[in-house]
């Protein structure tokens, strides 16, 4: 799995622990000024197979290929555009009367009124495209989302959107952030309903907590 380092920092300095606190495992004294200590890295998770098309070859093998496999100067897509190809099916409208082949995913672009070119570079399909024409690798997808979703991106940067893993205290360990596309599919970003896990079971001796709290 690849990861993009947001903040690279030196290893944590270990500070002396006052003797009267030395009961448990060593903990640094955080009363010292915040700039006095170096911080661990925050990395943004990059989902497996990001920006690649997954398809099954006739022999059953599953392939994950970059866009340029077909969208190159000499690519398949450029040579013979076949609207019935399963991989983009549903994203692009089917010609009238054409039924999707069996096994094809039913996907539609459900992201405002956006067009493919709002996000994908037309010249180099292996790259994303910002509104000002600048291009980005797929790994930097958060920057793409950020340009249109300022409030969520601000919250994300401040840790109150998008969740995290690892350490709240970066002096003592690193942290991983989710990518926007870990939770929102870029083509249909609405968060999908899920089935809840872990129903509370009747606590066989404690009726007071059975259904309602009051």
């Amino acid at each position: 799995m690849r990861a993009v380092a947001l903040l690279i920092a030196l290893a944590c300095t270990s500070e002396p622990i006052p003797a009267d606190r030395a009961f448990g495992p060593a903990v640094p004294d955080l009363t010292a000024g915040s700039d006095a200590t170096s911080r661990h890295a925050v990395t943004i998770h990059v989902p497996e197979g990001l920006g690649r098309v997954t398809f099954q070859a006739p022999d059953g093998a599953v392939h994950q290929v970059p866009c340029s496999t077909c969208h190159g100067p000499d690519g398949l897509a450029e040579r013979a555009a076949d609207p019935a190809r399963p991989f983009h099916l549903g994203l692009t409208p089917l010609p009238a009367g054409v039924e999707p082949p069996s096994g094809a995913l039913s996907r539609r672009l459900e992201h405002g009124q956006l067009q493919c070119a709002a996000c994908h570079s037309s010249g180099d399909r292996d790259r994303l495209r910002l509104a000002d024409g600048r291009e980005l690798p797929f790994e930097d997808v958060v920057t793409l989302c950020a340009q249109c979703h300022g409030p969520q991106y601000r919250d994300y940067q401040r840790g109150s959107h998008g969740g995290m893993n690892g350490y709240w205290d970066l002096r003592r360990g690193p942290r991983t952030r989710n990518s926007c596309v870990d939770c929102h599919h870029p083509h249909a970003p609405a968060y999908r309903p899920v089935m809840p896990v872990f129903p509370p079971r009747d606590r066989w001796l404690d009726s007071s907590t059975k259904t309602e709290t009051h």
Partner: protein
Amino acid sequence: MDASRRTALKALGASLGVAGLARALQPLVDWTPATSMDELLQKHYKALTKEELAVILRRLEDEARDTYGVDVTIEDVRPTPGVEFGYALNLSICIGCRKCAEACHNENNHDRSTNNSYIRVLEMEKGSLDMGKGSVDYDGPVPAPGKFYMPVQCQQCRNPPCVSVCPVEATWQESDGVTVVDYNWCIGCRYCEAACPYHARRFNWKKPELGASEINPNQSYLSNRVRPQGVMEKCTFCLHRTRKGQLPACLEACPTGARVFGNLLDPSSEIRWVLENKRVFVLKEDLGTQPRFYYFFDE
């Protein structure tokens, strides 16, 4: 453990001295083989020296191995100077999937048969904030139309009613704001459970049922070690993790990113940003409990 034991102990201890007390209690020990003499005579957590505590931790580890057939590490993790924990939950984001409750169940070595967890997720009618109207046994898919979801766990109050009602000082607030229980001192009277306006405390009606492979072996004395029967337990913000700088298990498990945790004393922390930039509120503010657990909606 029952209420009379500690009471009897306390009264007797004053007049007999430790050796006499041990002899006087020998019959009682014989009746309850699960309770060792060492445990009966254990001092209050706060009165223990480092050496005494080390002995107790090793004893508890041995007991865990004997009872549950698994090697565990029980540490005593102390608060970090300059740290006071705060937690905030974004109700616009939470979808009620209960993954937090499940993670708590596993992290904190809860009894498997009851699905016990320190977190209850309330399904609430949009527009209402009345905890009493929330339902906990909803079924999916979530979020259901017209509903929102409010996970409730210990609010780590600055003014904890559960602490003041405890007759034996078995529960107290630590310097980082976490209210803890000395399970070996608790007499199981359940006053604290009744006093908590958030229904955040649980009573161990029976010895927790846990398979060896289900046990989280990274334990601490004041948090997730397997609790004895007959004592109170509660959320400790996963102090065995958070006092080492890690995030609580319920936060890491949240698939929606609704939870924010950090140090209230650090002006650059995520939790401080939320308090200063979102319109946060606390549950049952009128009671004056002053929770360190905050809720907010995105505007």
